[in-house]
Structures are given as structure tokens and as C-alpha cells.
């Protein structure tokens, strides 16, 4: 008897693919957003932070429900896209990416914002007095000095994306060989009583998550 079969390999590969793409999107969007929230003063700043952080505290099924409303075939964005292209994101692997992205985003946002807010104002001001623009100062002073917090955020986001279940079930469903990421495969395996396969997947996911937490802890200690 082998520990792994083709379907399990598919789930592992899909989980890594979904988490990688979602984390890349999180890096691209959460870092600039964290910078704006940390450094700019504008009306509605804290409300924006609350809205973007909500997926951290909402049940993932609720987040998934909102995603259906927005991206479903009749959704606010999904509707026009479907009419235009005939394509809808629901029940595709991209939907799993979207779900992972939305729930992982606030973890990155929170850690990156905290790290950027802790950068001494004098470093930023001295950069300005040396003739550097805000853009250059952000890239060469704020980002490097927030590096450890940002790395911790990236790792947390990836780990969260790997473990995403609820919102993914809502918008990507449980389609074997298409959208069954590791957490979803574990749910199916347990449901059908395939315990030995479920055990392998559970142990793998636990080891991967534990490894990422270890990296975060190492970085977090060095931040302080």
C-alpha cells in the first residue's frame, strides 16, 4: 500500500499553487495598503482598516458568502464579467485563490502596518531633508526598516492561505481533481472514512503550518 495516490498529490500541488498565487497577490496589494494606512491621514482611514480586516474575525463562510454576492454569476462584479466574457470564477481553482487572498490579506496588512508605524519618524524626515521623494523614502527607508514585520506577514499569509477551508468551500466548492485543496480533501477523506489517507494529509498540513509558525516566531523575536 502506498501512502499517497494521484488525487492526494493533486491536492498538495493545488494547495501550494493556490497559496503561492494568493500570497503573491497579498504581497502586491497589502504592502502599499499598509503603507497608506500607516503613513497617511485621511477621513475614513480606520473604517477602511476595519473593512479590510473583517475577514480575520468573520466566519469564513460569511466571507465566502460576500464573495458569492460580489463574484457570483449574478454578482456585482461577477455578473458583468460573465455577460462580457461568458466566464465565471465560481468553482474554479482561481476561486480558491480569491478566497485564500481575502482571508490572508488582513494578516499581512496588520503585521506590515504595525511594522511601518514603528519606523522612527526621524529616519523618514532625515530622508526628506536629504532631498529624497516620498516614493524613494518608502522604498529605501520605510520598507527595509519594516522588513522583519513584512516577512512575518508574508509567512503568516501563506500559512493561512494553505489552511483556508470555509470561504473556499463556498465559492470553489469541493470538486475532486479541480478545487479540492488539502483542507477540502481532508474533509472529503474523513467523510468517506478513508482514515489512512486523511492521516497523511493532516500530518503534512500540520508539519507545513508548524514550520511556517516557527519562521514567524524567529522573525517576530528579532523585530522586538
Amino acid at each position, binding site marked *: 500500500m502506498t501512502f499517497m495516490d494521484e488525487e492526494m498529490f493533486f491536492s498538495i500541488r493545488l494547495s501550494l499553487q493556490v497559496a503561492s498565487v494568493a500570497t503573491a497577490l497579498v504581497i502586491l496589494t497589502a504592502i502599499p495598503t499598509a503603507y497608506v494606512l500607516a503613513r497617511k491621514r485621511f477621513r475614513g482611514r480606520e473604517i477602511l482598516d476595519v473593512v479590510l480586516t473583517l475577514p480575520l474575525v468573520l466566519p469564513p463562510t460569511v466571507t465566502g458568502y460576500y464573495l458569492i454576492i460580489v463574484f457570483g454569476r449574478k454578482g456585482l462584479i461577477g455578473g458583468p464579467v460573465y455577460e462580457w466574457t461568458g466566464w465565471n470564477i465560481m468553482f474554479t481553482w482561481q476561486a480558491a485563490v480569491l478566497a485564500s487572498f481575502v482571508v490572508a490579506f488582513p494578516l499581512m496588512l496588520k503585521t506590515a502596518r504595525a511594522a511601518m508605524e514603528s519606523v522612527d519618524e*526621524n*529616519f523618514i*524626515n532625515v530622508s*526628506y*531633508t*536629504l*532631498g*529624497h521623494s*516620498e516614493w524613494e523614502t518608502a522604498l529605501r*527607508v520605510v520598507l527595509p526598516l519594516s522588513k522583519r514585520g513584512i516577512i512575518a506577514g508574508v509567512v503568516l499569509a501563506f500559512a493561512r492561505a494553505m489552511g483556508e477551508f470555509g470561504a473556499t468551500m463556498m465559492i470553489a466548492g469541493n470538486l475532486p481533481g479541480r478545487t479540492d485543496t488539502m483542507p477540502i480533501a481532508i474533509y472529503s477523506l474523513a467523510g468517506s472514512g478513508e482514515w489512512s489517507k486523511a492521516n497523511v494529509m493532516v500530518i503534512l498540513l500540520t508539519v507545513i503550518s508548524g514550520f511556517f509558525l516557527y519562521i514567524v516566531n524567529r522573525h517576530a523575536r528579532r523585530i522586538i
Partner: protein
Amino acid sequence: MGLQVKLEKAVKGFSLDINWEIGNELAVLFGYSGAGKTMTLQMLSGFVKPDNGFIRLSGTVLHDSAGKINIQPQDRPFGYVFQDLALFPHMTVMKNILYGATGASKKDGMALANCFIREFKLGGLERRYPHEISGGQKQRVALARALIRQPEALLLDEPFSALDRPLRLEMRHFLKDLMDRFHIPVVLVTHDFEEARAVADKIIIYENGTISQTGSPEEFPKRPVN
């Protein structure tokens, strides 16, 4: 020419109303904490906007409330050495100094930085990080970083307050040497009267947000009253 300043600013429980003018000389703003000295530097550099007044440097208007002119800090030609020096902890001595060489090409910047490293006795420390060098060396790196872009005036906020006495004396000499080389207005903030007398060409006494006296060090043989 030189630096002409007239500034008014009211903040919670404090108001500043000052007016002074200096040439290519070292002016010391002396006064107790909370007299408005650092706030003056922050307005000169553009981080705090005055309610009223103007700042003119070498004939160029950097701020004029009436004319609604307010040049951004990035575009003001001041070199500013902060009280805590604010050396970038993630950059080596060389990179800190190079960071000040804004606008110069990489080659020119390196040549200039090497020149400053030699002149400021920082040779051999190029690859060290700020936490790996002494207090006096940090002062010189901060000065080099502020001067490498050839500012038209230099602002120093209690630059020597963290140093012990022998090093303070050494840095005063160093500053005097700098003055001979860079003929620009230098504004130094301190609450150490001995230091003010030792380095100043002109002493401007701050008291509760106004100027109580102005004069050469010889005119202040003793510590002013108040």
C-alpha cells in the same frame, strides 16, 4: 544673503514669535527646553508650517505665508543633523553618506563620499553599521551625510549633547574647521551656554517662544539671566 527668518506659530499652550537674520556664520539658538528652538528648525526644514512669516535663504524664498509659498522639505537646500542623528541602522557608514549624495551620478557620489570619508577621518569604517562605531564617529557620519549634497545652510539640533566632554571639545573644533571650509549659514541649537559661547559667531537667546537677546559671544560674558 544668508538666512532671514520671521516666524509665528501658535500650538496648544505655546506660541512662537521670532525674527532673526544671519550671514555665513555660525548662529547658536540658546534657551531652555521648550523655548521654541527645535520648533524653529522644524519650520526651517519644512516639517512644521508656520502660521505666519517667511524664510529666505540666499535670496530664495522657501516659505512666505503672505505669498502662499511653502517649499516642500525635499526641495529645501538645508542639511539637517537631528538630535539623535538618525543614522539609518540598515545602511553601512558608506551607504549612509552616499544616501545624502542626492542627484549625483553613482560615480560622482562615490568619489565625493570617499572624499568626505577621508576628510572626516572615517577611513576603514566604510562597511561598518552605525551600531558598530563610536559616538564621535556617528556625529561625523551624520555631518558628512548632511553636507555631501552641498546644502546652502546647515541645521544642527543639539548635535553634541550625547557626547562626553573630551569628545564635545573635539567636535567643537571639528565644527569650527567645517565653518572655514563651507561658507554657509549654520544654525546650532543648544541649551549648553558654554558650548554656545565656544562655537558661536552669534548667539540668539530664546525665551518662551520669543527672542530676548542677540549678540556676539563677547557680549555675553556671563550666562544670561533667566
